[in-house]
């Protein structure tokens, strides 16, 4: 009887174990074949073709996985994140820069990199120290750098030849003089072609970011670290800040090679309404589709007191809202593959963040990219600081700059220029104080 009972127990245990094993196996195979959807949100509509082709490739090895890609204009996208990250209704993957995501990182709403992803990011020579530092907060790394927005000078070669200018400017002084020669006017004195398209109007932080392109080479920046680590203060209430604002005011009023009425930015360049402007490499792709006959070249940002270009890193993050983070990360890493990164560079125009990929053949085919990959020990890279207050600092500065650019009384008025800069810097410091980030 005892033997029978033991045999029965053993049989029962075996049966349960078998059942469990079967159940596990079947659930695993079910999850492998079960249709799954991963959503990706981007703030750059021009990136959509890149994600779509990568999703198709991913589907070849993951036939049950559908990648849904939704892109929005950048500002609308940032607002969407504001509503959906805190409410945990955001997509599985988001493509966003640190400056827009930092407040969520600091609030603990974005998961840090771990395991295979962390190893991938930290691999020797894969990403620049600048990119890693940009993505770090409190000693942890968040997200994976996907592409970078580096600035260079675009110039219309036909207009340069017509004005007898043989080389792109290498200093801000040269650039100013070239802009004067390149500007054109109608009989009534209205500007019909700007010498250099500066950003003079519009809401948001864009105006300040473009002001930075001039401010940094002149020796200033928006905020710099204070004596105590982790504290900051305004770093443009100085000669550099005043010189940068004077540069703009003189351009609009004294020599009138740009003004608010003429079109600006890439649109202006593509329409032949400006001879020069600063922008990132995506414009190359934009010109190819909108103005394929435009004759132009690119050059590094000119020098002044120092030399440097802005570099904005755009990252991919898997969010806490993702129900399948492993699969989402797998797709993210596939986007970072050499094949996909090269496709992105050649077809969209955004410069990959990965340093360990050979893109020389693409640059050979499209020489305009060269200025964006140009390096020199003296050519600095600067970018958005990973602090939540940064967006407010530059947006409020942008609002003040727009008002200043409209004020013709600033022309030749050093005291008024100094006051404008000083008032703006005081506001910057007040914002930093409110965030408990201010330090001398």
């Amino acid at each position: 009887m005892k033997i029978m009972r033991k045999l029965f127990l053993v049989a029962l245990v075996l049966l349960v174990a078998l059942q469990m094993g079967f159940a596990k196996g079947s659930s695993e195979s079910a999850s492998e074949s079960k249709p799954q959807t991963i959503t990706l949100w981007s703030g750059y509509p021009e990136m959509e073709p890149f994600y779509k082709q990568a999703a198709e490739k991913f589907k070849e090895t993951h036939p049950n996985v559908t990648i849904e890609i939704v892109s929005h204009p950048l500002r609308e996208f940032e607002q969407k994140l504001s509503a959906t990250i805190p409410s945990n209704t955001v997509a599985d993957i988001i493509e966003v820069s640190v400056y827009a995501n930092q407040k969520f990182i600091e609030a603990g709403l974005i998961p840090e990199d771990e395991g295979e992803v962390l190893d991938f990011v930290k691999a020797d020579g894969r990403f620049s120290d600048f990119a890693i530092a940009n993505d770090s907060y409190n000693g942890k790394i968040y997200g994976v750098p996907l592409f970078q927005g580096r600035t260079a000078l675009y110039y219309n070669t036909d207009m340069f030849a017509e004005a007898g200018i043989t080389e792109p400017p290498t200093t801000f002084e040269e650039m100013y003089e070239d802009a004067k020669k390149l500007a054109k006017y109608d009989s009534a004195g209205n500007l019909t072609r700007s010498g250099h398209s500066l950003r003079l109007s519009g809401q948001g932080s864009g105006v300040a970011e473009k002001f930075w392109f001039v401010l940094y080479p002149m020796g200033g920046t928006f905020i710099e670290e204070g004596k105590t680590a982790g504290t900051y203060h305004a770093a443009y209430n100085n000669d550099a800040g005043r010189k940068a604002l004077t540069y703009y005011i003189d351009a609009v009023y004294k020599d009138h090679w740009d003004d608010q009425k003429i079109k600006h930015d890439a649109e202006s360049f593509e329409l032949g309404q400006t001879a020069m402007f600063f922008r990132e490499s995506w414009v190359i792709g934009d010109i190819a589709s909108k103005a394929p006959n435009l004759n132009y070249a690119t050059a590094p940002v000119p020098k002044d007191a120092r030399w440097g270009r802005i570099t904005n890193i755009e990252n991919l993050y898997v969010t806490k809202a993702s129900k399948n983070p492993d699969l989402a990360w797998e797709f993210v890493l596939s986007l970072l593959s050499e094949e996909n990164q090269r496709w992105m560079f050649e077809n969209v125009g955004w410069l990959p963040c990965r340093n360990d990929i050979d893109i020389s053949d693409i640059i050979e085919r499209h020489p305009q990219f060269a200025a964006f990959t140009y390096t020199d020990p003296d050519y600095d890279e600067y970018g958005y600081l990973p602090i939540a207050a940064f967006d407010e600092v530059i947006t409020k500065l942008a609002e003040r700059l727009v008002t200043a650019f409209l004020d013709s009384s600033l022309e030749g008025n050093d005291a008024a220029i100094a006051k404008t800069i000083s008032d703006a810097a005081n506001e910057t410091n007040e914002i930093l104080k409110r965030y408990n980030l201010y330090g001398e």
Partner: protein
Amino acid sequence: MKKNNNTIAVPLKRYISQTEKKKRIFVYCSIIPVIAIFAFVRIIPICTNFVYSLFESTVVNPTQKFVGLKNFIELFHDQLFLLSLRNTTIFALFVTIFSVAIAILLAALLTTQSKLSPLYETIYFLPVITPMVPVAVVWKWIYDPTYGLLNYILSWFGISPIGWLVYPNTALIAIIIMSVWKIVGYNMIIFLVGMRDIPETYIEAARIDGASSNQVFWKVIMPLLRPILLFVFVISTINSFNVFTQVFIMTSGAQGAPGNAVRTIVFDIYENGFRYFRTGYAAAEAVVLFVIILLLTFIQFGISGKGDSSKKKRAIFRKGAVK
């Protein structure tokens, strides 16, 4: 409670018939879900907003620290808020006055029933049903200094290109013009309905008594339109104080209007709440906006109530004593 012996005791519960009871149940069942939804989407958020306005907030915690009236005190020292208050007041004043005046004029012209009246009504009403975002984008093109339709038309008269959205003095005017165009059709339809509702006998009586068209309009039609005028004024004021979409669209992009020149309260609320995540501060701004609109509505009701002689006029008309 003392009972007087001479009075008949009235039962506390009035007798309700079964049919009445069923009717009431039906009414309650119909109204309660609507009230519940309204409370959920309107009343509760408004009350919550009042609470949030007393707190300092973070992106994840809207009630992180109780600060009392600090947000309100800070608001009245905030130059951007004061600027947006000024801009919004100017905007609301001009949009309300012009949209009401033009709408009355159009309604008066369309009151006479003609074959083409429905066509004109449709044309004037079209901007109202068109979504604001595409409308704002189209107007941004119209105002473009280089390629804009408006400057092109002005060039026929030898007027140099104007940067409508570029300069502060013209940017607000440009947005006011566009907003008046957008809502004038709605106001016109309301006035038209009101005018057509005025019995023809009143107007005939006035004419028999020798009133000119001008007198008929000012002495007969306008006084009788007073309740509708009040409604349109209140709605236009509320809508104008809540202006946002057209400002947001027209200030975006490299060719956008200078943000501060057309900065309005809702735009400022949006920026503080959804860009800088100062939800407590933004909630305080929303409370101020709520109070302003409430006060203006009361003032409008007060002014209308004081001068409301339409009832008297109707009585006079009945006696045929209009002069």
